[in-house]
């Protein structure tokens, strides 16, 4: 089974030191101090792809739209067992909405033979949760969002568990080829081995610019988007928590006092 897995490089929003500041244009954020990681859900998608490859054979192609710095997450996916990679990189791709993004990903697949395409269910930076779903429609294949369990029934179909509210799994049978937007938590993403990392450094990452995609300028970036994010803003927040000040001994003391006063300890 040949699998394509789409990976996005995102700022590490788990890191307490990641501060998000809107830049001068109002349409971007200051990237200078970010540390970048693979998008959480994409990490699970990569693992699912490698697991399927180990069980059923085939090749795994890693696809990314991003700058050269994104090679870091691509190489990690290759080190875990990906076979080849495509990175789409052109300044004209900036500000692509989910449709333009999906169109770009689809263009990278025009020469790739695939049975299954996987994306993450949601990117932690823009949180559209839409790219994989739009991509499926552009490719003209069925899809499933929030896919958490994936089982191969035969070479024509998969059994896929979609995780819904309350943790309920909606089991579906889906024909191949298809797109799965993978939810987190369905597997245990491995760490890359040293051998894998060494081998990955030798694997080629094919880079595609606008011309290579075969798309026109008005199909990508803001021009190719149907819903453009025009202005970031700092959200209005209601009443914030009362912050207890001091060193850990002081704040812990204050908190213990509050809990005692409320009869909670």
């Amino acid at each position, binding site marked *: 089974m040949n699998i394509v897995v789409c990976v996005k490089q995102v700022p590490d929003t788990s890191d307490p030191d990641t501060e998000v500041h809107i830049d001068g244009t109002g349409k971007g954020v200051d990237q200078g101090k970010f540390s970048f990681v693979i998008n959480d859900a994409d990490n699970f998608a990569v693992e699912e792809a490698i697991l399927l490859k180990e069980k059923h054979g085939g090749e795994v192609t890693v696809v990314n739209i991003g700058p050269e710095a994104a090679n870091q997450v691509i190489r990690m996916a290759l080190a875990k067992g990906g076979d080849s990679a495509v990175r789409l990189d052109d300044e004209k791709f900036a500000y692509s909405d989910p449709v333009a993004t999906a169109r770009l990903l689809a263009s990278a697949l025009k020469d790739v033979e695939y049975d299954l395409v996987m994306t993450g269910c949601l990117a932690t930076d823009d949180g559209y949760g839409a790219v994989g779903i739009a991509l499926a429609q552009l490719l003209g294949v069925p899809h499933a969002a929030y896919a958490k369990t994936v089982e191969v029934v035969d070479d024509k179909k998969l059994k896929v568990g979609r995780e819904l509210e309350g943790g309920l*799994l909606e089991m579906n049978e889906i024909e191949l080829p298809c797109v799965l937007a993978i939810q987190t938590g369905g597997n245990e993403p491995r760490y890359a081995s040293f051998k894998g990392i060494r081998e990955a450094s030798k694997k080629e990452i094919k880079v595609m610019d606008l011309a290579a995609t075969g798309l026109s300028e008005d199909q990508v970036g803001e021009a190719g988007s149907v819903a453009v994010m025009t202005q970031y803003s700092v*959200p209005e927040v209601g009443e914030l928590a009362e912050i207890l000040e001091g060193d850990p001994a002081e704040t812990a003391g204050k908190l213990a006092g509050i809990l005692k006063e409320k009869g909670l300890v």
Partner: protein
Amino acid sequence: MGDILVLAEHRQGELREVTLELLTLAGQLGGNVTALLLGSGVDDFASKIAGFADKVMVVDDPMFADFNQMAYQAALAEIIKNDKPGLVLIGNTGQGVDLVGSLAVELDLPFTTDAIAVVMEGDKPVVTRQYYGGKINGTINFKDAETYVIGVREAAVPAGEGGKSGEVAKVDNPVTAEITARKFLEYVEAAIGDVDITQSALLVSVGRGIREDKNLPMIEELAALMGADISGSRAVIDAGWLPADRQVGISGKTVKPKLYLALGISGAFQHVTGIKGSDLVVAINKDPDAPIFQYADFGIVDDLLKVVPALIDKIKETKG
């Protein structure tokens, strides 16, 4: 503006609250509100929805007994092509997310997902959404079109009182072809574990901020001292540090303890949806901008690995 079409959502024999929220939002935006109910034997849903809509369009067919994205998309595509609503609202739920992007691309309509607010500027909707885990907002402007499709976050708009009495119209199923590429099989309920955190009076809840599972014993000690149960964010469950039934949030449990102590949890909306019924929320997080502080009553901005041991000592002292 043209009419607003709202997709009703139901699952396992229950109408989901998001339906009434979307209808309430549609009512606020003005214009004629049509609810589309795809289902099988759903008359009672139709009469409930009628209180919130000017018209309820019911397609009653076994095809729609359970959610099948392809069947839903086929029906919606036909109805949208036919009725040309100005706006289509769909819940940004497990069902809606599966549908919005592909439906809009099929019909070549502008769309966006996970709207937390929608306003009309003239004939055009303008959407607010969250970015970077809720740290900043962004405004979405659409390309001009006859119809816009918007996925709206659950609980973004509270359901109102209704007060309408829409006409209920059964229409023929516009989907004539058999759907074969995707089949609904069954629902599998989430596993039940040893502790039911929905009943816990005190919860010590951990997030990715605990860094490694080797920091869990410290949390267990605190919880034992307080007589609290331990719960966690999805990130901690995904990492395998706690069992799945301890997950708080939209795809986990909704809890209502007297105290919810959130340790190293950022406060993603999918998480805080599950803690709104708590009496007192206390958050410890190193990041002063963490959204969790918007939901907490008290907060400590510090390293939990330093504060938790201190808290254990102080509670021991208090207990004497």
